[in-house]
């Protein structure tokens, strides 16, 4: 199995030489097609990790390699989704989903001529996340959960090899969140995309991921790596099994300890 993401001994400091050290000696690897989750105490540099992998920040020390390439500028093979769906209110949902295609070098020149093909693809994605027929609605006509589904479609439209999710379900109610866990689980299974999920929700991490990274308090580094043993496809039912709860409890303990140390 080749690694899609390799991070080696990375230091990232904000605001010059005297600034805060956000991550230090960070090392982690994510294999192609894998679903990785990153958990840790708040302010541990999880969002910094997102920006390092996508090339929005370049580290002062160490190397970040994505898809065999040294990351020195933004890598367009990545799709991103945040807790805030940030859909543009003057565009319909469908036009919002097509937005990355107007940016990514590979697609922007083909978009006008092959509009039909791309629209069909967007509508297929909408169907996958359960938003069939909502493409012509404006984002503010959708509920929070529906906006987040559309946000996932936007992150996937340019067929990224890597999907980076920064607490995408943090602002949703418990039931909608579980529904979207299943959506993302099915997307992962269907599209074979590599996913890195940054989250506070340990059950979310345990339910979705193949591998869970536990980060320390600032400056962030990887404390432990857990392989999640549950077979796929997973059902929401597994959250009531003892093994699942043991894993969640163990994660909880490690993060609580990391907080105390800090």
């Amino acid at each position: 199995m080749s690694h899609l993401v390799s991070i080696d001994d990375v230091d990232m400091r904000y605001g010059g030489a005297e600034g805060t050290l956000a991550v230090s000696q960070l090392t982690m690897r994510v294999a192609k097609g894998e679903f990785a989750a990153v958990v840790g105490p708040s302010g541990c540099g999880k969002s910094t990790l997102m920006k390092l992998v996508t090339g929005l920040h370049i580290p002062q020390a160490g190397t970040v390699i994505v898809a065999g390439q040294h990351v020195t500028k933004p890598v367009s093979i990545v799709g991103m989704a945040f807790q805030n769906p940030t859909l543009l209110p003057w565009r319909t949902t469908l036009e919002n989903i097509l937005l990355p295609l107007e940016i990514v070098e590979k697609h922007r020149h083909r978009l006008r001529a092959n509009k039909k093909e791309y629209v069909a693809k967007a509508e297929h994605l909408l169907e996958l996340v359960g938003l069939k027929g909502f493409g012509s609605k404006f984002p503010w006509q959708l509920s929070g959960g529906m906006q987040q589904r559309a946000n996932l479609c936007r992150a996937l439209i340019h067929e990224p090899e890597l999907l980076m999710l920064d607490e995408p379900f943090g602002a949703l109610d418990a039931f909608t969140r579980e529904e979207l866990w299943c959506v993302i689980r099915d997307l992962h299974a269907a599209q074979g995309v590599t996913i890195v999920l940054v989250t506070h929700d340990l059950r979310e991490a345990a339910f979705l991921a193949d591998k869970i990274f536990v980060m320390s308090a600032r400056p962030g580094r990887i404390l432990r790596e857990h392989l999640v043993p549950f077979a796929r496809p997973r059902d929401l039912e597994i959250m009531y099994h003892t093994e699942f709860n043991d894993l969640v409890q163990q994660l909880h303990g490690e993060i609580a300890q990391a907080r105390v140390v800090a």
Partner: protein
Amino acid sequence: MTIVTDNTKPASITRREPARINWVKAAPWLYTLGLFLAWELLVIALDMPVTILPAPSRIFEAVVQYWSPLLKNSLQTLFTTTLGFGLAVVGGLAIGLFIGWSKTIYAGLYPLMIGFNAIPKVAVVPILVIWFGIGTIPAVITAFLISFFPIVVNVATGLATIEPETEDVLRALGARKIDIMLKVGIPRSMPYFFGSLKIAITLAFVGSVLSETVASNYGLGNMMSSAQSQFNVPLVFAGLLALAIEGIAMYALMAWIEKRMTGWAHRSTMAN
């Protein structure tokens, strides 16, 4: 509702319908009428001399009597105001986009703009007269100078407040600055821009009338100042009335344009 067996009920509803008055719609007219009535009564009650405060009836008399110079000067003022405002829209949009483009430009130019805006425009008119003589040109330029600031500030604010997440999503895809501006920044600042037009147009009237009063042979400002020197107070008030009407009309036009262009920003009214 369509299949109602008891058909006396809908009939009674339709009968009552015409009697109902939409008070909200009627309110602006009624309040204006009320203002004029109260004014008229006050003048009668205090027995005001016409050289101090003419009654509305006397002002309307002046409107009829002087309708030709009033119309001519109103059109002149409307012309200088609209021209100055038009320049302010173009210039304000351009400078706003320029300032909002980068944090450095924003930091550098913003204090200059504030300082410039703080200068009373009446102090600038004499300089304009030295440069361009009296008449139309200083009026247009004063209208421009006074009205472009709110446009600049609003456009720049719209650009400067792009959500960082949106920017991250696009930059991670390899978007250049120009892409982010075209796809997000400019559409996003449009509600701010159209909103600022309502403020700018009323300020533009202030600018043009100010310049006409100080340095012109045309326009409502000039007409009012010469009427005042002849103690023709009803004509001064007729000029004010004309300005108020032009101001309301242009404001309404800007509000209408705002609503047409950026309906998405008024989402609550559209969702219903």
